[in-house]
């Protein structure tokens, strides 16, 4: 079964090939809960309340504490290029919340017995029971792919600067990153893939190598000069498409 819902401002598609369809309901229910609890755009969310330093009745929830730990980890690991607390802006852990929440939705489907599914949350992909072919959107042409990956159960996340739309800031300077167009990370979980892609993008071109050094991560990146970078272990679909590779 396939289902698409719009939550957190982006479309979330579930393509469930086996298992209990009711699990899809629970997965979407979880994602709506995440939106209510962690959105910085909702005044009554846990994140907004924390940002206003309002005391929570039962203290920080374990989920929010976990998310903040993840944010701190990536802030340290990127030397401050990535931050959930960019000066002059409110607390915004969205970059970490998204991957983490969708990975947990994937875990819910797996726990309910599904061994074959794809979740695509606004371009970030969690999979199980592939092979799944994942097209990576061309950074300059919205209707084309710049590469196609093939994964079995890995996650794929892309951070990019397209012609219009989102700009990722380097928290060290407060300025948008301009030397990268697109950076894609393949990792064992979407929690890692999404956070690594976002954090690496904030570092600019230096983030390509940084991401490649992260445990279990493979990287595909297009820089502002249209140079294509990729790690040797990147799971490009079809050997002929790979074109070139180097020994790792």
């Amino acid at each position: 079964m396939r289902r698409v819902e719009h939550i957190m401002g982006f479309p979330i598609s579930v393509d469930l090939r086996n298992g209990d369809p009711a699990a899809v309901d629970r997965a979407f229910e979880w994602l709506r809960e995440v939106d209510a609890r962690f959105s910085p755009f909702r005044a009554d969310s846990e994140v907004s309340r924390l940002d206003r330093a309002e005391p929570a009745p039962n203290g920080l929830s374990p989920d929010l504490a976990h998310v903040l730990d993840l944010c701190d980890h990536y802030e340290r690991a990127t030397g401050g290029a990535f931050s959930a607390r960019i000066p002059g802006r409110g607390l915004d852990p969205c970059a970490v919340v998204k991957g983490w929440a969708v990975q947990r939705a994937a875990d819910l489907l797996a726990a309910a017995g599904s061994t074959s599914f794809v979740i695509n949350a606004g371009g970030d992909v969690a999979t199980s029971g592939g092979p799944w072919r994942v097209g990576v959107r061309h950074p300059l042409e919205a209707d084309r792919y710049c590469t196609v990956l093939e994964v079995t159960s890995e996650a794929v996340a892309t951070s990019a600067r397209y012609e219009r739309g989102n700009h990722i800031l380097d928290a060290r300077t407060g300025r948008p990153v301009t030397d990268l167009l697109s950076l894609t990370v393949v990792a064992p979980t979407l929690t890692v893939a999404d956070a690594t892609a976002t954090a690496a993008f904030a570092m600019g071109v230096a983030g390509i190598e940084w991401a490649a050094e992260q445990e279990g991560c493979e990287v595909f990146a297009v820089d502002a000069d249209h140079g294509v970078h990729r790690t040797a272990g990147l799971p490009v679909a079809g050997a002929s498409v790979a074109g070139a590779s180097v020994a790792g």
Partner: protein
Amino acid sequence: MKRAVPILLLTIAGLVPLWRFEAEPETVVAAPEAPAAAAPDTAAPDVSGTSQAPAASGAQTVTGSLISTKYGDVQVRLTYAGDQITAVTMVKQPNSGPTKMAVPVLVRETLDAQSADVDTVSGATTTSGAYVQSLQAAIDAKGD
């Protein structure tokens, strides 16, 4: 544990080819139609010649300006079908020294990737508004 990090930088800006000094042969992608001795690229579309513009398909060619590099002059010609680049040709390239030439790989990989049937699409966060006209929407609508 840190792994060795073989990042492959294959292309350079503005269709200026990257000159890789003593590059490993397998890391280099040859031009589809280099007038000099580059190997033919079987993945590239079959275009009939740099001076010929196939009329029916609306194809057109654009020749870039001459660029001087430390290895010699470089000039690139692109063939378009509509807005899409279908071929990259070297008009001028140095023929001396152990240099190897790489076509803009973003173009080449794009050409290769289009024929692929995909299950899903990864990209920077698509807003719900942009989703309507996205590739992923088409995949979702297609059904099983």
